[in-house]
């Protein structure tokens, strides 16, 4: 099949890219998504989208940029941050014009709430289902354009890149079980993060991150993968997200003595300190015996106290949190504490791209015709720690930028010829997937058992508190999982909607993504943002103010480093909140 532009992934970044590309040029666009297009994990984003909408004496683009740079523990590329804060209000207004039901002030302007690490309230929201409302609006607006074709439940298995130029992909059509070759002039990768590398996560079952592994295999590079964000408040024991909006609206965190313990960790910002700091505070409380213990799971937790907020705030501003707490833990937030603990939430790292989302090879050269946007990419605006509500802004801004750039590129570029080489590549994939993986003798290892081992190894060895010796024990475990994957057993022998086969393909990519996290974390001998090492508890700007670039060299992960781009903020303060 041939299209001008392929968009791989259908979250906010992918759909925003599709809209912008379709409006920019009368080109033939295809969205390939491993889920049905409107069901991507962006729907689960709750709290809001940061943007300085109404600059005044309290807020400015400069202040939003400063908060983001400081929040990133100075690892963000400052030119990219400046682009983010400049474009974010433009994008919020675009989303307003296409129909997002933003929550409103009485005069019709958009409401904004407080969020962690932001100096002033600048998080625009649609109740506490902001991601869902943006997704739904983007998806329905896609239906306006005849030049966007949607491929629901197409799982991309391989990126075809030749002499530094994107050519196409192969994808498994889940509904028929056929492998298809897509050739295109350009592509945007917008496949999201890799939360499911860990067991306890807020992310959807589909947020597995295999595309990051595929990227490594295709000769691309991953940047800053060791920076994994733990969101402070996930429901125990399911891991379902309780938005930071709960604290933005005035919620407290309390330990079992009823103490607002954040006063000992961030005396000024308290519960609204950035996520890395709040997550470590909660885990410290639990480790030191001041947490509660969940009976069935044995998990430690603290209480999220919303009782003083009153029914009005709960029903109007955070109704979803109220519903989730009631439904999944049987708690009425007006009467009781919500049991929460930190869970893996966001992948700060991702595919190595430049400020405009162009995908870079390990040597820094552009892979022509290829872009990446959203959580899948590391631009990098979040550096070592993302501030809450900056991700929806990032997805929308870089969705737009890459969509427009890729559309313009696709207008000029020649259509790839149906060459024997690409057909061979597709046949190679068919043989790998159907002959080797699908029709294996029985007796191998279950996909789910191996996936469980991967998640346990990541939790145990590459968690929120890291140590060289522990990580050194983790790497051989991951390598053994890599080796054992060769014996994985796909028990479903059918072609139609073979999820068991899809799960195996996912796991294959996940293992490589996990290795990039592991090697990056072991190598970085400092603590910065979400990467915290007990054996190196201080930030070390002299040696480590640089991005990690991971790539494959002879099938092994190799690391190199590139400088952080610094524009205005040259005073690297200690992060106190």
């Amino acid at each position, binding site marked *: 099949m041939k299209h001008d532009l392929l968009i791989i992934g259908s979250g906010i970044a992918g759909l925003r890219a599709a809209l912008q590309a379709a409006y920019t040029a009368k080109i033939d666009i295809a969205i390939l998504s491993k889920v049905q297009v409107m069901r991507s994990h962006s729907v*689960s984003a709750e709290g809001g989208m940061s943007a300085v909408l109404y600059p005044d004496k309290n807020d400015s683009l400069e202040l939003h940029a400063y908060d983001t740079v400081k929040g990133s523990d100075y690892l963000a590329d400052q030119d990219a941050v400046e682009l983010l804060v400049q474009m974010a209000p433009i994008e919020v207004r675009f989303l307003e*014009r296409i129909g997002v039901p933003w929550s409103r002030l*009485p005069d019709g*302007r958009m409401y904004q709430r407080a969020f962690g690490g932001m100096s002033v309230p600048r998080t625009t929201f649609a109740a506490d289902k902001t991601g869902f*409302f943006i997704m739904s609006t983007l998806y329905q*607006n896609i*239906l306006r354009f005849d030049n966007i074709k949607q491929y629901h439940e197409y799982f991309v298995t391989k990126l075809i890149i030749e002499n530094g130029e994107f050519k196409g992909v192969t994808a498994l059509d889940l509904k028929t079980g056929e492998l298809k070759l897509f050739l295109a002039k350009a592509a945007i990768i917008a496949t999201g993060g890799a939360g499911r590398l860990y067991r306890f996560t807020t992310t959807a079952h589909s947020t597995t991150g295999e595309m990051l592994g595929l990227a490594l295999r295709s000769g691309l590079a991953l940047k800053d993968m060791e920076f994994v964000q733990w969101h402070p408040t996930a429901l125990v024991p399911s891991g379902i997200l309780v938005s930071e909006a709960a604290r933005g609206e005035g919620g407290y965190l309390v330990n079992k003595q009823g103490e607002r313990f954040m006063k000992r960790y961030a005396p000024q910002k308290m519960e609204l300190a950035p996520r890395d700091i709040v997550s470590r505070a909660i885990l410290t409380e639990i480790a030191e015996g001041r947490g509660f213990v969940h009976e069935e799971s044995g998990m430690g937790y603290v209480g999220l106290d919303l009782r003083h907020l009153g029914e009005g705030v709960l029903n109007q501003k955070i109704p979803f949190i109220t519903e989730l707490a009631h439904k999944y833990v049987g708690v009425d937030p007006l009467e009781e504490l919500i049991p929460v603990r930190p869970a893996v939430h966001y992948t700060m790292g991702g595919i190595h791209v430049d400020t405009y989302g162009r995908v870079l090879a390990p040597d820094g050269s552009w892979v022509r015709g290829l872009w990446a946007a959203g959580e899948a990419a590391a631009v990098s605006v979040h550096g070592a720690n993302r501030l809450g509500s900056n991700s929806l802004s990032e997805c929308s801004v870089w969705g737009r930028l890459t969509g427009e750039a890729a559309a313009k590129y696709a207008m000029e570029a020649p259509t790839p010829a149906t060459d024997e080489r690409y057909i061979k590549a597709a046949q190679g994939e068919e043989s790998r997937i159907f002959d080797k993986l699908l029709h294996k003798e029985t007796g191998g290892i279950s996909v*789910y058992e191996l996936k469980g081992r991967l998640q346990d190894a990541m939790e145990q060895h590459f968690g929120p508190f890291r140590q060289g010796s522990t990580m050194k024990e983790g790497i051989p475990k991951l390598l053994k999982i890599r080796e054992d994957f060769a014996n994985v057993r796909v028990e479903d022998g059918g072609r139609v*909607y073979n999820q068991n086969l899809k799960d195996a393909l996912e796991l294959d990519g996940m293992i490589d993504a996990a290795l990039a996290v592991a090697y990056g974390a072991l190598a970085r001998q400092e603590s910065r943002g979400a990467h915290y090492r007990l054996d190196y508890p201080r930030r070390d700007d002299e040696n480590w103010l640089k991005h990690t670039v991971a790539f494959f060299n002879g099938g092994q992960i190799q690391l190199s480093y590139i400088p952080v781009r610094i524009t205005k903020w040259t005073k690297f303060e200690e992060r106190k909140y």
Partner: protein
Amino acid sequence: MPALTVKVKRFDGRKSWWQEYKVDIKSRKISVLDVLLKIKEEQDPTLAVRYSCRMAICGSCGMVINGVPRLACQTLLAEIKDDTITVEPMWNHRVIKDLVVDTEPNFEKLRKVKPYTIRDLKEIYESDREIGQKPEELEKYYNFAYCIECGLCMAACPVVATNPRFLGPMALAAAYRWSADSRDQGWPVRAKIVDTDEGVWSCHLAYTCSAVCPRGVDPGFAIQLVKAALMRRAKKL
């Protein structure tokens, strides 16, 4: 705790059969989706279920549970009480495999009602204007914007069951949602689409759509609001 019996209506592309699984559970605070995934991972990896967010917002896991169209992730065992659970694929949809159905016809019907802001495209894409919306204007369509496109209303609708051409509650609620939005100017265009036999006039007011909606959207009411607007020849909803 006694083992749970889960009866699943299966389909492999050719034949259909009922299969029974016994599942040990530690708690009833888990969802039907959790149980199905436990079966997939521990007993039968050939079982097909569409799922993703597990928090009732992505709309993937609609199915019929003990005779009622519901989201599997939103249905806790504690609500079921019984130690036997029966699950079958959503009614009124072509089954692809096991509990996975083809919902693409729903999306095509949605496309027909033009579910997006209709106003000057150049203004939308090239201006940097904030249109603005008062809270009371938001309130007018807000309930209907909660639709997660799961298809449960389509599964429950007795008219969809007999008339596949009927646009159905999902698309018709969207027609109301967009036309009632103060930023939209598309009602005259959409009125022509829904003022038809395939549109609102086929609705028999069974209200099963509203009864099963997992997000509390009231598509039945949206359809009646559209009918009322058509009757009084309203210029704008």
